[in-house]
């Protein structure tokens, strides 16, 4: 359509604008309808499933409408998506479950920069937006100019041979797979909350929507689904934030005015640091931690003692004809005791660390607006903490930014732009649409913290709002409020909120109708699904196009390739769902790790390949392998399970320069650059082939 001249192009654009406008009206109308229905007595048990169902059906509907087996359409959406829509789709593709669900929570928990052991906070906001500067200038327009289909294609075309492409395809699969597991985990979390079904069934429900869309329509359907999902995400994020700002500050323009609350929080933090009841809570946690430490001195004896005590308790309960529920609870406690010493040691160590963590002022959270913990002019320990958080903050930011420029599923998005200038404009639009949300995320964290400190702290335990109990039932790790010092009043140190919970619980915290909770959950689902769509397509393309078909010359039509890609996609999706059902780890660390991997594997060689003619094939292979190996080695050396399984000489000794393993890209990227440069220098560039080719 784009090539029929400016008039028809304008008509095409107008048609798209009209459809988008109608769609936004439709979403708002649907919200109003649901709000009305809730007022007329529609049960909460229905609202969640209805949102889930509609969300998945919209995706599936677009998938069916956009179904295609044409290769150009399936892989790059016909290269005719206007920049604004491409940017919107890239934004949805980009903002994963991690951004939408966890970012607000991470900012709440980590404040400006996180703690020495756990960097984060605003590094996520900066890292996930600043990377687009690199994408816009160094990568996207150059890749678009080459008219490719996938990222491994670049390595094939630029360096030739088979190894650059094979390694690139494997690296793309590796980092996209870690990322897609995190998305599907998010889908399961939301779907199980929305519908009350089991986590595993929740995963399958959400997966149905992803599959219908990307399976049938490929890139074309995914692009338009992502545009639709972006609208839901934006509304789902901005409505609760604006509402909280309206409640607290009298204006819905949260991002402009929340500076006032930052200062308020600072004041309240000072009060909490002086409060006697908070000190009681800290002492209670310290006591618990010490109890575990005592047990760890002699694990065998302590385990026997604990078992004996539990049996004794059951005996007593039986003897006194206590309530059956109490006896069952006591037996369950006995049954859940560690089976052997190794397990006991592991569990008690974790409990000890956790209790000591919480036995710090403000429940272990850093001061919200203070840049970096510790004090540059304080005691040696404080000085060290300051240096450590600052270094880790900068390192994480670096990895996220460079990782942005290397994530294959994002870069393929710019292949769908109609021209090189269009690719540049697409990046600018993506950054705009992403910034709309990311600038609001710190506002959300601040407003929620104010709400918690101002209203929840100091209320009575018997008057806790309903939603606390509901969420604690879903998973105790997400939320626990426990009266540690036994005074019946909530202290700040007694509240523990999980990072993944805060965004989902915000509407209830602010007292919004349940419909908005449904919308937020649908937004989280949209974020997870849209990213999963893009990732699955990237993985299956890498597997089928770049590995299977390039290895041997196979005589197949483009349609057959597309069909094979579709089935690979199905298989990958099921594998990812299986891994996600094992609940491997929190969402955010998983995602950050895959950024480090993408940064080290792709960026050095891609940048050198684009800007330095002297890069050779061997140099590219060396750069990718060394970068990836260094990052992977550093990450894996710090996985607890591997630390015990492998002999210590095989692992990195401690932290290098105090950098946390999620920022492994700090070492991987320079290593990749260095290896690519050195090996390219050694293996001199081949005789000037391009000139010969031109003459032919």
């Amino acid at each position: 359509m784009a090539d029929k001249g400016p008039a028809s192009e304008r008509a095409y654009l107008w048609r798209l604008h009209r459809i988008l406008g109608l769609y936004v009206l439709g979403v708002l109308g649907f919200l109003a309808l649901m709000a009305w229905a809730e007022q007329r007595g529609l049960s909460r048990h229905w609202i969640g499933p209805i949102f889930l169902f509609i969300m998945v059906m919209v995706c599936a509907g677009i998938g069916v409408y956009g179904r295609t087996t044409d290769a150009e359409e399936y892989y790059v959406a016909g290269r005719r998506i206007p920049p604004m829509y491409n940017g919107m789709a890239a934004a949805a593709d980009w903002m994963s479950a991690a951004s939408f669900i966890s970012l607000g929570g991470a900012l709440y928990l980590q404040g400006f920069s996180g703690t020495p052991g756990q960097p984060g906070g605003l590094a996520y906001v900066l890292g996930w937006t600043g990377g687009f500067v690199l994408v816009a200038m160094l990568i996207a327009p150059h890749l678009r100019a080459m008219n490719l289909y996938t990222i491994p294609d670049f390595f094939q075309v630029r360096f030739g041979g088979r190894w650059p492409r094979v390694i690139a395809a494997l690296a793309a699969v590796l980092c996209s797979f870690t990322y897609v597991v995190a998305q599907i985990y998010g889908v399961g979390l939301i779907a199980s909350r929305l519908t009350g079904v089991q986590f595993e069934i929740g995963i399958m429900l959400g997966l149905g929507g992803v599959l219908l869309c990307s399976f049938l329509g490929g890139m074309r359907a995914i692009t338009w689904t992502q545009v639709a999902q972006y609208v839901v995400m934006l509304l789902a994020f901005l409505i609760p934030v604006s509402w909280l700002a309206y409640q607290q500050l009298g204006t819905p323009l949260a991002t402009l005015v929340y500076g006032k609350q930052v200062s308020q929080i600072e004041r309240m933090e000072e009060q909490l640091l002086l409060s006697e009841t908070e000190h009681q809570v800290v002492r209670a946690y310290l006591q618990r931690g010490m109890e575990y430490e005592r047990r760890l001195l002699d694990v065998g004896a302590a385990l026997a003692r604990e078992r004996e005590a539990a049996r004794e308790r059951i005996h007593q309960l039986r003897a006194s004809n206590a309530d059956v529920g109490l006896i069952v609870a006591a037996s369950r406690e006995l049954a859940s005791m560690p089976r052997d010493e190794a397990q006991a040691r592991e569990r008690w160590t974790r409990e000890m660390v956790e209790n000591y963590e919480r036995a710090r002022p403000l429940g272990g959270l850093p001061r919200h607006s203070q840049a970096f913990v510790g004090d540059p002019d304080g005691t040696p320990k404080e000085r060290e903490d300051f240096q450590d958080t600052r270094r880790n903050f900068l390192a994480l930011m670096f990895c996220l930014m460079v990782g942005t420029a290397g994530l294959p599923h994002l870069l393929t998005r710019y292949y769908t732009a109609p021209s090189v200038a269009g690719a540049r404009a697409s990046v600018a639009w993506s950054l705009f649409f992403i910034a709309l949300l990311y600038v609001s995320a710190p506002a959300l964290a601040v407003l929620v913290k104010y709400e918690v400190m101002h209203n929840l702290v100091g209320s009575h335990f018997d008057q806790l709002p309903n939603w606390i109990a509901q969420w604690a039932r879903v998973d105790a790790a997400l939320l626990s409020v426990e009266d540690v010092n036994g005074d019946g009043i909530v202290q700040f140190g007694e509240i523990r909120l999980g990072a993944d919970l805060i965004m989902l619980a915000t509407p209830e915290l602010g007292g919004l109708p349940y419909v908005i909770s449904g919308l937020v959950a649908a937004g989280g689902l949209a974020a997870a699904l849209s990213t999963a769509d893009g990732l699955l397509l990237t993985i299956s393309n890498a597997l089928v196009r770049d590995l299977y078909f390039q290895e041997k010359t196979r005589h197949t039509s483009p349609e057959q390739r597309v069909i094979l890609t579709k089935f690979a996609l199905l298989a990958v999706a099921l594998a990812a769902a299986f891994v996600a059902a094992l609940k491997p780890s929190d969402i955010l660390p998983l995602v950050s790790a895959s950024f480090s991997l993408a940064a080290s594997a792709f960026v050095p060689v891609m940048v050198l390949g684009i800007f330095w003619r002297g890069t050779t094939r061997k140099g590219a292979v060396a750069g990718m392998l060394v970068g990836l190996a260094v990052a992977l080695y550093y990450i894996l050396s710090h996985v607890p399970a591997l630390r015990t399984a492998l002999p210590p000489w095989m692992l990195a000794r401690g932290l290098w320069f105090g950098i946390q393993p999620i920022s492994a890209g700090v070492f991987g990227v320079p290593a990749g650059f260095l290896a690519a440069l050195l090996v390219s220098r050694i293996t001199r560039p081949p005789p000037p082939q391009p000139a010969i080719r031109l003459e032919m």
Partner: protein
Amino acid sequence: MPPGAPFAPDLHDARHLWLKAGLLLAWALVTFVACFFARDLQMLVAGWPLGYWMAAQGAVLFFMVIVVAYCVAMSRFERQEAAQAASVRAGGG
């Protein structure tokens, strides 16, 4: 394209490279340098702690400015180059 025949990248126009270098320098200043000194920027400006505002909003706005400036400048360069190429063709033919 036959496998084994690598594709050399286009020679980059020096003007484009200077533009990129300048904007990347600005980018590095806003992100790494500003964050490195964030602790020294705690003073309140218009009700905001400056270091916090810079990291939470200012830098993101600045990124947008950089990317838009790059788009505009590159489009202008491309127009100039197209005009030049056209005049060369017209002169030569």
